[in-house]
């Protein structure tokens, strides 16, 4: 299988001496949905900036579908669609102008660009807004506009730099569906995000970058299997004594709630035993991750269902 992206020894030292990348090696295969994760300032955006030629590299090689960034930059650019972190379209232009102009920069004739604009704006629920100025759109619509704009020249590699930042959960999920669909159609996707559950749901492979170096590059399954600790929230019956747990890392959230980090191999029995010895009754228990998210989506979906009338 062809490599969609191949990075070797990528380095970037900014003016002033800050070394953002210290020799990044990375391979993303064609058709992959790849998560590039890392804390703030780890080098994610610099890496993306170099791939999309917004940042000049200091050293190293970058190839996109076999095309070299140094010698075949136009071919490289033609294959990439970029959805940057910040809104960077002209706020005074209309939605249609923004996407059609972007296609024009890639040499797509205006008539064809308009056809594609209709296709992608429809898919992203923005066609009705095509004649509205970008500044009048909501945050979620602006995010979707960024995705539509990046797809107009039909790139084979789509790079999304925190595409769902600040987007409500319902919209985030619809964007996940859309991205999954285009990935299935053959578009390789590289995603950076701070929402780890987003990477978990969408991506097959994952790279973790920290302090300018790739510190993990593996499949999502393998990485998740390394997760050794789970957090549980225990709802407790009212008690005169505060709960005390020594067999696991625990935090008292309030009078009735205890949060416990449990090592998978150790299990929860010892925690229950300790609480039982103190005469504290556990009323219910839940896994901490994504509970509110699921509840919110369920409530919204229920609220949208047509109500029965008598």
């Amino acid at each position: 299988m062809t490599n969609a992206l191949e990075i070797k020894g990528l380095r970037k030292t900014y003016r002033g001496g800050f070394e953002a990348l210290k020799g990044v090696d990375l391979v993303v295969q064609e058709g992959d949905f790849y998560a590039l994760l890392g804390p703030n300032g780890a080098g994610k955006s610099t890496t993306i900036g170099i791939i999309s030629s917004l940042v000049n590299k200091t050293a190293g090689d970058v190839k996109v579908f076999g095309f070299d960034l140094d010698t075949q930059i136009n071919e490289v650019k033609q294959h990439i669609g970029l959805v940057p972190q910040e809104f960077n379209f002209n706020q005074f232009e209309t939605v249609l102008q923004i996407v059609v102009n972007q296609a024009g920069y890639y040499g797509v004739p205006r008539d064809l660009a308009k056809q594609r604009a209709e296709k992608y704006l429809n898919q992203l629920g923005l066609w009705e807004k095509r004649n509205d100025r970008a500044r009048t759109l909501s945050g979620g619509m602006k995010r979707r506009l960024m995705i539509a704009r990046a797809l107009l020249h039909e790139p084979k590699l789509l790079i999304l730099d925190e595409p769902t930042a600040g987007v409500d959960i319902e919209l985030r999920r619809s964007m996940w569906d859309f991205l999954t669909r285009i990935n299935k159609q053959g578009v390789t996707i590289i995603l950076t995000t701070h929402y780890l559950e987003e990477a978990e749901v969408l991506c097959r492979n994952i790279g973790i970058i920290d302090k300018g170096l790739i510190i993990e590059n593996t499949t999502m399954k393998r990485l998740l299997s390394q997760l050794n600790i789970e957090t549980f929230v225990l709802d407790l019956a009212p008690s005169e004594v505060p709960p005390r747990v020594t067999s696991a890392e625990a935090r008292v959230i309030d009078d009735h709630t205890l949060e416990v980090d449990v090592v998978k191999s150790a299990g929860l029995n010892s925690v229950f035993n300790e609480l039982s010895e103190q005469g504290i009754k556990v009323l219910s228990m839940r896994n901490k991750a994504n509970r509110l998210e699921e509840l919110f989506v369920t409530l919204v979906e229920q609220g949208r269902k047509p109500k029965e009338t008598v």
Partner: protein
Amino acid sequence: MQNPIHFTALKTIWIKECTRFLRIWVQTLVPPAITMSLYFIIFGSLIGSRIGEMGGVSYMEFIVPGLIMMSVITNAYSNVASSFFSAKFQRNLEEMLVAPVSNITIILGYVGGGVARALLVAIIVTLVSGFFVELSIQNFGMIVITVVLTATLFALGGLLNAMFAKTFDDISIIPTFILTPLTYLGGVFYSITLLPDFWQSVSQFNPIIYMVNGFRYGFIGVSDIAPETALGVLLVFNIGFFVLAWWLLKRGTGTRT
């Protein structure tokens, strides 16, 4: 394969630029018409009638080409400076930088937009001047070449300014402190032959003298500078500015980190 891509990209940038200045026509096209009308009334009709002839024609006829050129210079410069800097500031310039748009195409697109606005303003100001004076044309080719080269030169100047600019103040400093004095001292309102020898020699270093006189030659057939010299200076400056803009864009000055 590549040429049609570049042509489509160029057309896109140019249309985008023209759409921008036409969308804000109240800010871009109306002010020059009003300002120049005031110049025609005050300097041409009121004061000009007391001055009499200059260069063998009425004072009004003498200053009209210079005033048109003044509008061309200001509009070509400010159009590209503000548009390119805004694109840089709002980061929508990245739309072009990530696409296979060559640096030459970016320059031609932006400069083309600036030239289009400058020429449209030139036509408007010329039409307005028709209410005050009957313009004669001695050399139409010279008029067209001079106005196009001048608009191109100052559009390139605006682009260079915008590349280096870090704040909106930076794009108003050069027009205020350099461009305006050079324009007013560039023979718009007087013939440099009226100046003492020393100041005539100093004036030779003002590039705007060449543009105003070349343009004026096209209208009234009289110029303080030989038309060939005027065109030569314009051509040299244009080539120099273009090469500099291309090199800076290639280096990523003000556009890439």
